[in-house]
């Protein structure tokens, strides 16, 4: 039962990683941009949720109604003003800009909110649990996060396959120059992609804030597992990102069951192994 429990908790953990990684995967898929500030954006969204909850008295989960549009707007403006001017042939300059955004966000949050660790109190749901079998409990919150990850990825897939915006994303991703010729404004398409990514980030930030305490410096640690999930799953494939998150999560909990020292290492080893055997990930969708 210990092992079953480890695997179940690992799958749920995978939902969390997929949630952290979905926005990253989206941005990489559309504009080949590695967003170093992704983790810090998640933490910024967590702080935004904190402010919204304190001002309006809403339940943390309900604060998404305000936080998601605000983050999306912020993402759009950030893309148009800061990132678009640098996007071109050179992959390095936008990467460096996101690096700068990361530093600015961290220190801006530190100056505004101090270094105190904060958390969003969500009441009973934090500790509520489902007794499945003796020795196997499933917390409501991890389950909710897992479901949220599936719903978000399903939603993003719908946007990609069914809407004109999704068509614009795919066209720009396949060949930006031809897409420009077809009257697609690349700047706007990229802005919308970042807005969508930031909306997902907002959800991830709210869950992060309920799940554990955070402080202005806790962003970068969120980035690494997100990257690994994206790469394990295959670049440009959102369902692959979920699969990648689950592979990573299960590897970590099973590793930890052997010895806690193996937890993070097991995740990295699986990542390394997949990179060695299938360099393009499990379900690659693009070159």
């Amino acid at each position, binding site marked *: 039962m210990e092992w079953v429990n480890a695997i179940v908790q690992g799958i749920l953990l995978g939902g969390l990683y997929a949630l952290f990684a979905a926005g990253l995967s989206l941005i990489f898929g559309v504009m080949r941009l590695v967003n170093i500030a992704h983790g810090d954006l998640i933490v910024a969204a967590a702080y935004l949720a904190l402010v919204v909850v304190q001002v309006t008295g809403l339940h943390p989960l309900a604060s998404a109604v305000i936080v998601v549009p605000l983050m999306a707007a912020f993402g759009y403006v950030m893309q148009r003003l800061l990132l678009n001017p640098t996007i071109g042939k050179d992959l390095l300059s936008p990467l460096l800009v996101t690096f700068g955004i990361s530093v600015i966000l961290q*220190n801006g949050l530190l100056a505004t909110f101090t270094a*105190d*660790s904060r*958390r969003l109190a969500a009441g009973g749901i934090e*500790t509520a649990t489902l007794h499945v079998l003796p020795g196997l409990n499933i917390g409501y919150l991890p389950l909710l996060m897992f479901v949220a990850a599936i719903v978000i990825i399903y939603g993003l897939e719908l946007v990609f396959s069914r809407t004109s915006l999704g068509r614009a994303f795919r066209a720009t991703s396949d060949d930006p120059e031809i897409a420009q010729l077809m009257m697609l404004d690349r700047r706007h398409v990229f802005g919308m992609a970042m807005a969508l990514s930031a909306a997902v980030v907002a959800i991830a930030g709210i869950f992060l804030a309920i799940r554990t305490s955070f402080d202005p410096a806790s962003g970068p640690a969120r980035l690494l597992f997100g990257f690994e999930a994206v790469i394990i799953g295959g670049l440009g494939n959102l369902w692959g990102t979920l699969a990648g998150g689950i592979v990573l999560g299960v590897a970590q909990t099973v590793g*930890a*069951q052997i010895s806690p*020292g193996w937890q993070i290492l097991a995740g990295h080893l699986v990542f390394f192994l997949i990179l060695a055997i299938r360099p393009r990930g499990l379900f690659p969708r693009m070159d």
Partner: protein
Amino acid sequence: MADTIRTGLTRRTFLKSTAATALATPAILHFTRAYAQNPTLKLGYVSPKTGPLAGFAEADDYVLDGIRKVFAGGLENNGKNWAVEIIVRDSQSNPNRAAEVASELILKDEVDILLGAATPDTTNPVADQAEVNGTPCITTDCPWQPYFFGRGGNPAEGFESTYHFFWGLEDVIANFLALWDHPGVEKKVGGLFPNDADGNAWGDAELGFPKPLAAAGFTLTDPGRYQPLSDDFTAQITAFKSAGAEITTGVMIPPDFGTFWAQAAQQGFKPKIVTIGKALLFPSAIEALGERGNGLSTEIWWSPNHPFVSSLDGTTAKALADGYVSATGKPWTQPIGFRHALFEVVSDVVKRAADMEDSEAIIEAIAGTSLKTIVGTVDWSKGPVKNVSKTPLVGGQWQKQGDKFELVITTNTQAPEIPVGGELALLG
């Protein structure tokens, strides 16, 4: 770390320090500061103002403001008045950065005394730079074992110019054991020790928790070192549940404890006592845990209820903490007392130093310190090793009183002069 510093003393460092002396020489020939109208004492202070350790330096501005007011009239040394300049540098919570700013303070700003505070990541690189350059250095706010042994210290020799005051691992262990001595609790402990400097020291089979716990009749379940910022503690929770642990301990950072504590509830693990080092120090960390923060216990280095007064102006611990609360509107934190005490020691050293121009004389004065400060007595002649002076440590529990959490001292076996404020209540 000490090794890298030692190998770091190569041609480049040597040239740098000799260049600094060469530049300074003509000044000495003409007149030294002591003959100037208003000689100035330069203090360099390094702390983690930004980055993950910033919580430790949060009260720095408030304390430094107070200290600057006290030092505004200068300090007396051998009948001469010395103006005091405090140069503050941010370590950015990064040991390499701490070493860099410490070296700048020594070589460029030519500080007379170097000060540093908060965790081995600050105290060790700062003290190493000072030791290499022979600069007098006082540090605090880091258990003495990581400070002393982490720098490759040899108890027989000690260090030349660097001194430290705080408590040690043995004090934490003694306090935790006293906290857990409760008739309603089985002596079964689950340990959460991360793979970092603190976790490895606390979990060390020889010098850490395992031996004293076994000697006191406790069984310790230690699943092994976990990586800090882990997102899952299922393995540990499963191990504690099957061992029937009723007490949980460890030395964790707040996000790790938050993750663990939520998962413990989700997976049905309900210990009766949870005593964690580091993660539960700051009121903000407890507030963040909400109702689940009530009843957690931790070590207490300093509190407003400590019966000590400042040697500078007779401020009581309570007045200092209240001043911070009213000035900032934030709850008091434990480092406040230690930051204040650091400058108490400096003031005392300046008063006693035979010659403020001579760093040897300043070091001698530091070594000869015996001062009652706001955190207890600082006296390097009584240390566990040379260069280390121990301050008293007690243990206590966060208890909800009204709508606020209060850190109540529940055990004082290690420092009976500090009054107990209440009894330990078991977690429900």
